[in-house]
């Protein structure tokens, strides 16, 4: 199973859609007023730093918090793979579903607010490094460790 880091977008950055015949379409995105992308996005900065730092075989996914259909099973699967069960798994999943959270191989490193890009990279590298060195997924108890 390949390693994966998941970044959950903030509340402003999620796509504001409205179903068929509307949606966050931005059709005139070359200088038109549809180009209303947020100017500052903390997730973007952390994502860029992570993508530059972590090995290419580590997937870095940016997920909208509303995309629970993917996020929930991913958190449960990765958490279980780390050996989390019961209340610990539930706490981990809940923390991971929060906006602006950072999850590395099921370990919730930040929940509710992202650290600075350098700190995020360091935390992820330690996490991935620990897994690689120890060979055991059951490190910490799955609680949010940063932020």
């Amino acid at each position: 199973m390949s390693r994966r880091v998941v970044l959950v977008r903030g509340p402003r950055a999620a796509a504001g859609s409205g179903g068929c015949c509307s949606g966050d379409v931005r059709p005139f995105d070359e200088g038109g007023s549809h180009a209303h992308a947020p100017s500052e996005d903390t997730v973007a900065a952390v994502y860029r730093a992570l993508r530059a730092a972590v090995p290419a075989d580590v997937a870095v996914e940016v997920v909208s918090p509303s995309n629970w259909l993917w996020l929930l099973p991913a958190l449960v699967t990765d958490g279980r793979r780390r050996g989390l069960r019961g209340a610990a798994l539930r706490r981990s999943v809940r923390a991971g579903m929060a906006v602006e959270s950072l999850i590395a191989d099921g370990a919730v490193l930040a929940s509710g607010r992202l650290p600075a890009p350098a700190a995020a990279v360091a935390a992820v590298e330690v996490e991935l490094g620990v897994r690689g060195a120890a060979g055991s997924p059951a490190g910490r108890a799955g609680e949010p460790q940063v932020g």
Partner: protein
Amino acid sequence: MDLGVAVPAFVVAAVVGVLFFLGYRYYSSYLARKVYALDPAFVTPAHQFNDGNDFVPTNKHVLFGHHFTSVAGAAPIVGPAIAVFWGWGPALTWIVLGTIFAAGVHDLGALAVSVRHKAKSIGTLAGEVINGRARKLFLAIIFFLLTLVNAVFAVVIGNLFVANPGAVIPIVGEIPLAIAIGVYIYRTRSSALLPSIVGVVVLYALILVGNAFPISLDGLAEALGVEQTRNVWVVLLFAYTWIASRIPVWVLLQPRDYINSHQLFIALGVIALGVIVGMNTIQAPVVNDVPEGSPSFFPFLFITIACGAISGFHSLVSSGTTSKQLDKESDARYVGYMGAVGEGSLATGAVLAATAGVAASQADWQALYPDFATASSGATGNFVRGVAEFANNIAIPLDLATIFAAVVVISFAATTMDTGVRLQRYVVQEIGELVKVRALSRNLTVATTIAVVIPLAMALLPGGGEAGYTFGVLWQLFGTTNQLTAGLALSVIAVWITRRGRNPIAALVPLVFLLAMTTWALLVNLRNFVRDDQWVLAPLDAVIFVLAVWLIVEAALALRAAHRERPSLVDADGTGAGRESVVARANPDEPTSDRPIGGPDRDGDR
């Protein structure tokens, strides 16, 4: 036509499911390999311009979640619920064939072409691949489409509020509920899942309150001297959207979307479970013997069912946000084609609800669909009653189930309208920039007011003397405009395919079919409007007809030029289709192959 035996709804659902599976398995594979030549090695814009914000390489399952929830809404429910007037056979046939051979080609194609052009939007691509006039044409069509979307959904919601006064409290209550969730998530920065699930539970609890305290505006309408109560609702709805479209999306729109995303799956689950548990049978005729003077299903069926068979707006989502996040070009097959299949599945559910759920016998059904005016005005109500029956099969009391179904449709329609007015404001601002009127482009109040007043006027316009007629007409105008958008996207796709020396037949067939049906319907409508002295609808129809003819001319010229260009492209590298893989390996932006036909645009809009 009657089969003489009532067909079980779950058998129809299963057959459609198998056909969709075969369409995905085989036809989308053909499109991916032979028509769009999707190349997993192509460096997509998500990688090329990766900014962690709009351009992010995204897992295909994550991206499918974004794409499907952005395209699925109330429209694939409303169109099919009207179109079963011609019988469930033609409606379902168009949904299945349209999804497999038109929507899939269109949605996947818009995604593939956009990815090959720096993830630019289909409007910009129309300017690049065809010419600058095509881009202006696109802007005009979008303006009409949004106007009609907003007008149509105001009428849908107004009708549903009048027919289901018990839905008023849950729907109105959803607004502060969504705001509370939005603010809670924003302030605490916690998970959206739990609050939005609590939101759905509270919303459904409000159904009990709504059932106990139904709210009718009949008295207010009478006091104001308004003939139809629906119109009072329409005015209130536009007053609300004027405010809602100006507040940040995270306050109301996004949290309501969270709630709706749960409702989408709950409704699909209820329909699926209901038809299996209840063993409902389809009571409508396969082909309905419609009364004389009714619109014929050729061409009107094909514009009545727009979303659910093919929807032009899907190309906006495909090329607007989805193409910027595509990790591998080959993922476009799964994301784009499956998005169309998902929409087709929702439309199939709508057909089943309006034929199998809504009536216990064929006589009951005929009473609900006696003529086109009644069918169109009562269609969403019929869907609501049908879904309520399915919900009743799984032990939900019928009165509560009816409000539940109404709440699902109204929530979808309200969110669509909310976003529609917001987008219309952007279009008004963009038009203001084009015509250099600062009051339009810079003044938010002026732009929002225009975005609200035009569809409001359309929703209130009288038509035909029967309560539902205006809505039936509006829906057809919506369908024609939406199909024109799809036609423009398909013409861009067809030109793009032709220039690469590949067989464009997969895009040309739905393109020609859509344009033929659209112009035919517009002409018939125009004749009827003039005959009936409909001097609001007639000019509007005429304008859309002109846009359609303009599109046909542009598409024909572009295709002819592309066809002429094709041999030289083949000569240039000696391979034709192989040229694509050369381009893919080098991964340039293909600036030379898609110069606007007729030279650079001189209109100054690029």
